């Protein structure tokens, strides 16, 4: 489609493709696209088209041809951006909206201008009386076609970016208006041809043909659109999968390298392997969109427990097995409970880590949230701790009681210690 071959360029830049501009267009974005392609101001191109329009409507024909054949893209005058749909979304939202609304005003202006020019044109053109009568119907047809095509452009654009998306009724109205205009124009031509007498039968015949075509081509069309949308869905899925795979492969390779480097350091190797395992499990088994990125604060109990366990595990190198039953949003009390649970995990990892994995269990039952942290270490006696050691007393038991919960420490008969934390939820949200 690259007639008007681009001027020899200095740098080895890729040849620019001609696209119609989807930004700041008046009608079809043809002038803008051309201007961008040729490196001229838009107004010049527009003037040229208007001028050509005077020449027996050649401009209109040219414009229509460009509109029909040149694909809609991103670019135009100020755009040295690659014509990719993503580039359109990079600019800030506010500006996009303004840009999106402007064509509507521009369109009205453009249409008015067209009408004026058409009037002048009609006034100037020296056609024979017969041919001249056909002019208005032709204008109608042209305007209708322009409306419908423009609507098609909008629909395409709305797919790329969430701008210019209007209510469906407006879209429908415009399309219907365009069709009506075209119909009126065509009917007018018929009437002028003197076949007004046969208009009824002609319309009937046309209708019959239309219905026939719909019946024949309809199923194909429907299937084609279905296939297309399915294909798009598959493509999106494949992209998502590729993204996950890329992320996972990267981090796994990274970890393997680190493991080889730290082969002598057993605890570091264990830590790396556990961290990688957690990461992988997050990607594999977490439902979509549940905080796969570590940045955001946890908002639910399960999330908070897992996050705390992961951090303690990383820091102290003791595996922590987490089982969570049920879930609920975090409130102030539960957040305090999470803090206490974290302290308990740290203690278990520090003093009871030799006995194997630390087991963390959290359960939401009705209004009660219960968390237990147990280790299989040597165990310890709360009463034998000197009174000046405030760790457990303050950060676990004291914290729970201040927030209206309860904490219990017990020695498990077969060795190890268990911390049980109970807290009532602020309100029941089912």
């Amino acid at each position, binding site marked *: 489609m690259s007639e008007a071959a681009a001027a020899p360029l200095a740098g080895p830049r890729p040849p620019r493709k001609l696209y119609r501009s989807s930004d700041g267009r008046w009608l079809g974005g043809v002038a803008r696209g051309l201007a961008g392609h040729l490196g001229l101001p838009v107004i010049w191109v527009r003037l040229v088209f208007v001028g050509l329009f005077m020449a027996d409507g050649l401009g209109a024909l040219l414009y229509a041809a460009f509109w029909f054949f040149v694909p809609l893209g991103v670019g135009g005058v100020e755009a040295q951006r690659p014509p990719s749909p993503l580039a359109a979304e990079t600019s800030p939202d506010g500006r996009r909206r303004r840009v999106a609304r402007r064509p509507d005003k521009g369109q009205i202006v453009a249409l008015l201008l067209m009408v004026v020019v058409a009037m002048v044109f009609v006034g100037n053109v020296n056609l024979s009386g017969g041919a001249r009568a056909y002019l208005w119907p032709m204008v109608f047809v042209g305007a209708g076609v322009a409306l419908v095509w423009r609507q098609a452009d909008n629909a395409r654009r709305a797919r790329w970016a969430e701008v210019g998306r209007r209510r469906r009724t407006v879209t429908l109205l415009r399309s219907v208006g365009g069709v009506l205009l075209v119909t009126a124009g065509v009917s007018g031509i018929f009437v002028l041809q003197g076949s007004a007498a046969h208009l009824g039968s002609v319309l009937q015949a046309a209708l019959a043909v239309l219905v026939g075509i719909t019946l024949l081509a309809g199923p194909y069309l429907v299937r084609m659109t279905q296939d297309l949308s399915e294909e798009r869905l598959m493509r999106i899925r494949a992209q998502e999968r590729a993204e996950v795979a890329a992320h996972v492969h990267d981090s796994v390779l990274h970890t393997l390298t680190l493991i080889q480097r730290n082969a002598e350091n057993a605890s570091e190797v264990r830590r790396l392997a556990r961290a990688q395992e957690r990461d992988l*499990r997050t990607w*594999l*088994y977490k439902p979509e969109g549940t905080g796969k990125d570590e940045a955001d604060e946890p908002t639910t109990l399960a999330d908070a427990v897992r996050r705390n366990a992961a951090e303690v595990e990383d820091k102290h190198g003791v595996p922590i*097995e987490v*089982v*969570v*039953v*049920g879930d609920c949003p975090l409130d102030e009390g539960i957040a305090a409970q999470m803090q206490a649970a974290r302290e308990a995990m740290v203690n278990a990892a520090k003093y009871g880590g030799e006995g*194997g*994995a630390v*087991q963390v*269990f959290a*359960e939401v039952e009705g209004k009660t949230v219960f968390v*237990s942290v*147990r280790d*299989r270490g040597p165990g310890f006696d709360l009463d034998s701790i000197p009174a000046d050691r405030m760790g457990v007393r303050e950060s676990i038991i004291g914290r729970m009681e201040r927030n209206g919960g309860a904490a219990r420490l017990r020695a*498990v*008969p*077969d060795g190890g210690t*268990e911390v049980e934390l109970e807290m009532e939820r602020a309100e029941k949200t089912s």
Partner: protein
Amino acid sequence: MSEPTEANGTAGPAEAAGPADSGGGPGRHVRVVLVDDHRMFRTGVQAEIGQTEQTGVEVVGEAADVDQAVTVITATRPEVVLLDVHLPGGGGVEVLRRCAPLMGDTEQPVRFLALSVSDAAEDVIGVIRGGARGYVTKTITGTDLVDSIFRVQEGDAVFSPRLAGFVLDAFASTDAPPVDEDMDRLTQREREVLRLIARGYAYKEIAKQLYISVKTVESHVSAVLRKLQLSNRHELTRWATARRLV
């Protein structure tokens, strides 16, 4: 979990193969088939538990996919099959489906213990509903694994903390009325037992905690297993249909 948790020397259920004494001493013997598509893992397990003199476990066959597994199991008729959940050719569930007649054999039933790295509830619940007598994760120690194998051989159920968590979740009190009162609800006692398993307690510790015998703990767990396999609760059914095995 370094201590074996065994029944206190009494013979198990009627179909138990001889008296079981605690610890992995002589006098206990079990024939096992390993089904896993990772050769490295099979080798590891074989090295860890396959010393028949010490552990009493004899590995009589290995398989790496569904067809192989069915062939080997049919040919060797082991007492216990260690089954990986993810297998080429339909997964562990497919093996269970095709070996169903062997499981129901009254003379010498083949019992399955699922092993997996999976965290997905539908995988885990799926194999249990498919007929496996238990589920453990692959991070389990050799001693615990040997112990679980003997427990399965005797017809008991083996629940890992994670599985217990899933089951509690599945039977959580919902507003939906139960279809079958006996099958769709856990009793208070069963719930307590499961909770302690999820908290990392061994059966012996649970027994102490609740002042009941280890045998009673085992019968509670077996009852839960039966409910898991037969219940029509919608969560379970949903998990099951996800794996197409209703």
